[in-house]
């Protein structure tokens, strides 16, 4: 997992921007793979923030 602090708003905005690019067929295959993993990372960051306490998230970050 990426070691980053990102707000829900920033995460959702970034995800939507990437999705739009994919939907408009603006990415080549190599970029596609990279962006797909970025989106799944961001989704996971958001989910972790929803369910885990700051402490638990901190622990996950430290394990990296």
């Amino acid at each position, binding site marked *: 997992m990426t070691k980053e602090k990102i707000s*829900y*708003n920033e995460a*959702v905005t970034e*995800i*939507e921007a990437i*999705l739009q690019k*994919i*939907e408009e*067929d603006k*990415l080549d*295959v190599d970029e*596609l793979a990279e962006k*797909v993993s970025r*989106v*799944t990372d961001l*989704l996971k960051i*958001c*989910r972790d*923030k*929803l*369910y*885990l*306490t*700051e402490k638990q998230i901190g622990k996950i970050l430290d394990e990296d």
Partner: protein
Amino acid sequence: MPGEKRSLSELLEQVKGALNKELPAHYWVIAEILEFRENRHCYLELIEKSEENDSLLAKVRATIWASRYGMLRPFFEASSGTQLKSGIKILCKASVEFHPLYGMSLNITDIDPSYTLGDLARKKQEVIQRLRKEGVFDMNREVLFPIVPQRIAVISSETAAGYGDFSESIQNNRHGFRFQTTLFPAVMQGDEAPLSITSAMEKIYESESDFDCVVMIRGGGSKADLESFNHYDLAYFITQFPLPVITGIGHERDESVADMVAHHGLKTPTAVAEFLVDQLLAFEFRLSALLDRLLISVRNRVQGDLSRLERYGEAMLYLSRALLQRQSEQLRQSEERLRRELTMQLDRKGDSLAALKKRTELVDPRNILLRGYSMTLMDGKSVSSIKNIKAGSLLETRLHDGSIISKVEPSSETNDKGED
């Protein structure tokens, strides 16, 4: 009887007698409570102020004896939604009492809560009008609500049951969402409430960026006394707050002004907790939707690539098939042309042969014989005149299917005469 002396008590007994005679009944009186004190009985100071300049026009002590007060107070509070306290106006049924030692006071036996209710409603309307006029009424509702309200500043009384309900519902929500709540204790009822609450808000303001929203809750306490939440200062403070404020102050009837100006005015602390959990649930759904969108768009993309390849393949197949077809068609046409050409030439040759044959047939003597003609021979030579024919000559008559030999008899037309 001028000059007759009397004692003070005698005079005051006389006053008492005059009052009882002149004002014997009970009267419905409108007054404002200036002071309020209770043990078992209730002791009040009632006043009337000038409407123009607030100066005092009248003032009197009043008492509600325990026997009445025990019933009156709960009824009044339940019906009017406010406590008996200083500052409110009441319509009370009172008799004038006079005691030589304690002076004059009113003995209150009933209070009409609807009057107070009406008066409070009027005051509430005034506060609303003022906030609207100042253009601040909708300001808190215009604050952007956070996408995920997860860090909550709670204004409540620490011991209130409402706070317990709220903490319980939010920390143990069934979806397992994590909330971070921080309590800012405040007095939530009575006259100190507005100031106590606004001080708590000031503390929150100092660390504003640590919070997504403010929750103002109350409940479990006295159902009466919502008056604090109609207070102008408190309402104004809410309108000016940079974080969205959510109220759950347990109103049973009308909304308070605080509820109206808050970002969300909800009925109970539990309702506030559910609302917050719902917000997170909505966000969770949104994440799921985004994931679905990702899967679909990637699948479409990959399928798009595959079907493009497939289309290329199909196009090639189609093109080569078309090419083949065109070429075999050309071949077929050439063959056809060749065949036609040959046939034509052969036909032409055949025609001239037939004509030749016909002509030869026409001159074949056998064909003439077939049509019934015959041919006469003598000595193997064809006879075309009677000139050399003599009696006794042998003639051969040739027909198409055989010959007849015959002998010439003498006749006048024969050459016998000539022989003579």
